[in-house]
């Protein structure tokens, strides 16, 4: 098999001195879609944020290789330009910066000086992707995520994904807070990206989204590491039995202070 797109080895991540991700391993190859499922508070967002380079998360141990490069040595923007994309669980709002100015700046940052995307080509692409995501034209001129509803923010993350065409997309709870129609729209966007050059890591609490985007592999994360991996059937089993059945099977004890809460 070819070199993996992403290779994570024994990753440990701490936030404010507290270790959250504890020895995480994963390999994703070109064209694969992986899903990570797990109870709330188990470290899924921490993993995703650490991979993107969020300033608050500290990597205490481990190695991550992205397209043959040492990911942990790269700045956030370098990671993005190398082809990584994170659809965030809680995207920021930036007042005064229109969605379309932001997107054009991001695309041009990737293309480099002297190779900027022609304006007409950009507008055409933006119109096309917004239509596919059922987004009204006004979203191009609205300020980035400002005053967007939860669902609109999620759609806007997928819009960015489609405009930026990364090699690896990490989707952190892209399904939370979406009704079934919106979920289908988001899935349509992701499915439209599917190709041997595009890999995806879907982080979710529920199996629901996986009805619309069929993953190649499913991993269950608990207490900061992967505790079980399998195919799409693993997601269905979790949906039927919940996480408790798996915990019992694997002999995992509730940790002191870990409280289950709805996202």
């Amino acid at each position, binding site marked *: 098999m070819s070199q993996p797109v992403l290779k994570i080895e024994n990753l440990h991540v701490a936030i404010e001195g507290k270790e959250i991700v504890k020895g995480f391993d994963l390999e994703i190859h070109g064209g694969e879609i992986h899903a990570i499922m797990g109870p709330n508070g188990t470290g899924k967002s921490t993993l995703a944020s650490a991979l993107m380079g969020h300033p608050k998360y500290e990597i205490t141990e481990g190695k991550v290789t992205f397209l043959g490069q040492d990911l942990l040595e790269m700045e956030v*923007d370098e990671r*993005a330009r190398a082809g990584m994309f*994170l659809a965030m669980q809680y995207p*920021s709002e*930036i007042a*005064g910066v229109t969605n379309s*100015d*932001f997107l054009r700046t991001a695309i041009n*940052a990737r293309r480099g000086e002297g190779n900027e995307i022609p304006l007409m080509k950009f507008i055409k692409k933006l119109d096309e992707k917004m239509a596919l995501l059922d987004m009204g034209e006004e979203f191009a001129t609205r*300020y980035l995520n400002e005053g967007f509803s939860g669902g609109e923010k999620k759609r806007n993350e997928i819009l960015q994904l489609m405009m930026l065409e990364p090699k690896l997309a990490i989707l952190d709870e892209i399904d939370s807070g979406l009704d079934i129609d919106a979920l289908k729209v988001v899935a349509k966007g992701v499915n439209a990206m599917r190709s041997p050059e595009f890999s995806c890591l879907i982080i979710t609490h529920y199996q629901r989204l996986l009805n619309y985007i069929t993953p190649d592999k499913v991993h269950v994360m608990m207490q900061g590491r992967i505790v079980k991996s399998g195919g799409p059937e693993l997601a269905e089993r979790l949906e039927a039995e919940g996480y408790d059945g798996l915990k019992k099977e694997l002999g995992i004890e509730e940790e002191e202070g870990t409280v289950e809460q709805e996202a």
Partner: protein
Amino acid sequence: MATEMKNLHYDTSYLENFSGRRGEPDWFLDLRKKGLELAQTLPLPKPEKTRIIGWNFTQFEHELPTRTVDAVADLPENVRSLIGQGEQSGNLLVLHNGSTAYATLSEDLKAKGVIFTDLATALRDHGDLVKKYYFSKAAKLDAHKLTALNAALVNSGLFLYVPKNVDIEVPLQAVFWLDHDNGGLINHVIIATEANSSVTYVENYLSTTNSGQAVANIITEVYVGENARVQFGGVEYLSSDVTTFINRRGYVGRDGNLQWALGQMNDGDLITETYSELAGDGSSVDTKAVSIGRGTQKQNFVNRIKHYGKNSTSNMLIHGVQREEAQAIFNGITKIEHGASKSDGEQTQRVLMLSSKARGDANPILLIDEDDVVAGHAASVGRIDPIQLYYLMSRGIPKNEAERLIIHGFLEPVVSQLPIEGVKEQLAAVIEGKVQ
């Protein structure tokens, strides 16, 4: 007889000569003399938390060389680039060192009785009308030394008059351009609108001096008639050698509406106040202002609103960026007087600090003498949010570019309000230049 002011080489005979050569009416000369007298006795203004002792407000050359041009094309590029194109051109006044260099007003507006001319011309042709508004309800001559000085030595100015029921669709533009080292721009702008009229006015202050000694003393009076509407856009980029005093004052009649959109992008030391008096019932004002401080510049921004009328509404949005070793104080004062029932005053002041050596203070003040009102304020001084920066960078945007986007976004509320494309672009370009 000669009332020699300390550090100021002017006396009444100088004023008589100066005024006589300009053909000014007697009442105006009288106000000059009164101003000169008061300028010697009145104290400087006392801007809170900014020491202005030692700032040069009085040393400057008063009579400046000027030139006129026949066409916009003959103006220098930095002036020309500001000027509206197409539908936004045609009503323009360019003052070079205080005197008209170029003026144009559409026949349509002339026919409707609109007056748009420099102050000296207005005094000759419409003296009585100017008298009605000059240092009238909006501004006081005897407020302090600098207002008196303005009256004594005014050498530049503009008079805009909009008669009753006249709606002006296109913007009127003025450019005040100072290019004389050690020059003193003593400017007085009057905008007077009658009932049920509307106008959009945009002014630019531009200096290309570099002596370290120039002075700008600017008073602006805006009269909003009953049920009239005035949109006032202003962009200032006076250079670092200009010490500046700017006092803009609006007086709003019943159901009148005044909107200020100010880009205060000067590079020199500055004290400025934008004051709006909501005199009439149902009157409203919207004040939006942005600024960038850099270098070692010291600035004091006061935005003040007074509610007298019932059901009067005010909004204030002040955004300032502070870089390098710049210091600035932002005071937002909303006062609701007794009797101004059912009024609503809201203010927000935000300061974005880009350097650990810069200083910025935002002081929100609400003074309320009436029970039946709504009022609110928000003020903050902070740095660029690292999480916002992370979000933009996660899309591949380099850090400095991401910061630029955030700063432009922070100043956008005013940039987007400016009604002339050239002025908008120029402000965006000045912002760009100032944040690099």
